[in-house]
């Protein structure tokens, strides 16, 4: 059980503010989804929580410890991060690529202990890759590659998982599978899972909590029913929204883009 928190995070690159005074905490056994328009600061927040991004001010903490001060291997055993930018293909088999996830536990693709092998096998199975395990990654489709990278993050078996847009290249079946799996990992294994998503519908259906970001700030934070509302979505995405509650969750129906003058009058 790991509690992830961040206090007063501010990040700038040159004159541009990527995050501005963000304070947030993520509880164990919950799947939290971060949504927001392009450039809202979603990926930057994950980079900070993974200890990769340098901060102007503030602190990211894991169970009260400063993440940026943790030893790399120790941090990697606790916090898994699947970044957005990933290599298109690696000149190795799928199994070996997934086994790279065991680095912090001492495993390598060529020397896997019992626990490493189990973690790799479980990750391959969870991501529907067992049949492709011995194929070269160079022969995989975009969606299969995305699942392979997710499997590598799963193989690391970390109590905290930060996953940046894992669904982008996936077909509907694997999108649903992946979201079900992440929610299941959070609930059954007590992991703290934070996922950046563009699919508001899947966030509303599977996440326990949705955080809407805009211009480097947290704009809304709550349950799917609290966040997926016409007013908040209009403000965050500039899109007119209808909500279908008949399916058991607040399923968004995006109706039309709102021009900025109209958006201002709606939120102001």
């Amino acid at each position, binding site marked *: 059980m790991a509690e992830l928190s961040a206090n007063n995070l501010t990040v700038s690159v040159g004159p541009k503010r990527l995050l501005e005074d963000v304070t947030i905490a993520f509880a164990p056994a919950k799947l939290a989804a971060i949504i927001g328009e392009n450039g809202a600061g979603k990926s930057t927040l994950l*980079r900070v929580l*993974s*200890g*990769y991004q340098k901060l102007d001010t503030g602190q990211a903490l894991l169970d009260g410890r400063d993440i940026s001060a943790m030893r*790399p*291997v120790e*941090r*990697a*055993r606790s*916090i*898994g*991060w*699947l*970044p957005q*930018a*990933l*290599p298109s293909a*690696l*000149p*190795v088999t799928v199994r070996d690529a997934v086994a*790279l*996830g065991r*680095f*912090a536990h001492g495993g*390598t*693709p*060529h020397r896997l202990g019992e626990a490493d092998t189990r973690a790799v096998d479980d990750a391959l199975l969870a991501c529907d890759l067992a049949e492709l395990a011995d194929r070269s990654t160079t022969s995989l489709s975009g969606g299969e590659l995305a699942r392979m*990278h997710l499997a*590598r*993050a799963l193989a*690391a078996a970390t109590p905290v998982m930060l996953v940046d847009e894992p669904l982008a290249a996936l077909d509907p079946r694997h999108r649903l599978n992946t979201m079900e799996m992440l929610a299941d990992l959070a609930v059954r294994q007590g992991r703290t899972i934070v996922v950046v998503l563009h699919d508001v519908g899947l966030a509303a259906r599977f996440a326990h909590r949705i955080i809407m970001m805009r211009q480097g700030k947290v704009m809304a934070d709550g349950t799917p029913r609290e966040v997926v509302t016409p007013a908040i979505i209009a403000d965050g995405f500039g899109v007119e929204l209808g909500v279908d509650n008949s399916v058991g969750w607040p399923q968004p129906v995006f109706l039309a883009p709102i021009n900025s003058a109209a958006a201002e009058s709606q939120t102001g």
Partner: protein
Amino acid sequence: MRGNVILWLTAWLLIACLASIAIGPVLLPPAGLARLLGEHGDPAIATILFDIRLPRTLAAAIAGAALGISGAAMQGLLRNPLAEPGVMGVSASAATAATAVIYFGIAPLAAWAVPIASLGGALMATAFLTLAGLRTRGIATLILIGIALSAFAGALMALFVNLAPNPFSLSDLINWTAGSVANRDTDDIAIALPFILAGCALLLSVQRPLGLLVLGEESAHALGVDLMRVRTVVVLGTGLATGGAVALAGMIGFVGLVAPHMVRAFVGHDAGRTLLPAALAGALLLVVGDIIIRVWPWGNELHLGTLAALVGAPLFLLIALKHGTIRHG
């Protein structure tokens, strides 16, 4: 598999070293060496063996190993299959610094001056390339930066030669730029070897994390790689090994390119796992190359760097074309 490759390469390297000792204007077959060196043997044979052939063979093997491992490490760190000390200007920078020390009359003051200058040049170039690698994404861009660095180092070398207060011989300069292990003695080896060994040891100490850089820096960080440490160790290790190799044998290009590519077919693409096999392959390449130039039947003896470029440059083109086809095809 990798263990077998290392054993095979070691065996071939030993055979090549024995051949290198044996082959030359005077044949020294290994089987007859004991008799030739014995009580009633010819003292000239001992001179040829211990003062000429053995140092030359060792110099070729040591410089080749240093360049092979440096190429494998640079390719891993920069995630660029075309990176190697020669192409990227590291060797040229080392040679330029060494030339400056020679032509400005500093070299005679201390035996360590040339290798230290050579190391300094190599370290600066490697550090510069690593910084450039952090800011550039394209493989071609980084290669172009390396080529510019190489050209700049070459121009600086020409400038030093122009400004040098000491008269110099053209053959001396050619020895540096075209690369050679002829006329090396055990002192030359003793001076360069500690730096090369230290460089190799540093590089081998990061072979596990180096293999993860293929995923990109963010993913490697996520999996627990200490990026700053790996970068620093590879810069230092490559600088020491390449600087030592240049101090010993001058500029010999393409070994660091060809050796890792040779072994990759057998040991896979994990940059860390190619380090040791690439060192052995580099040593084998230069020892065999040095035998070839000694038995070269046409005209004067070729320089080792010239032969390396004759073989290596077309291979560089092939690799570049193959890579371009994969990326854009």
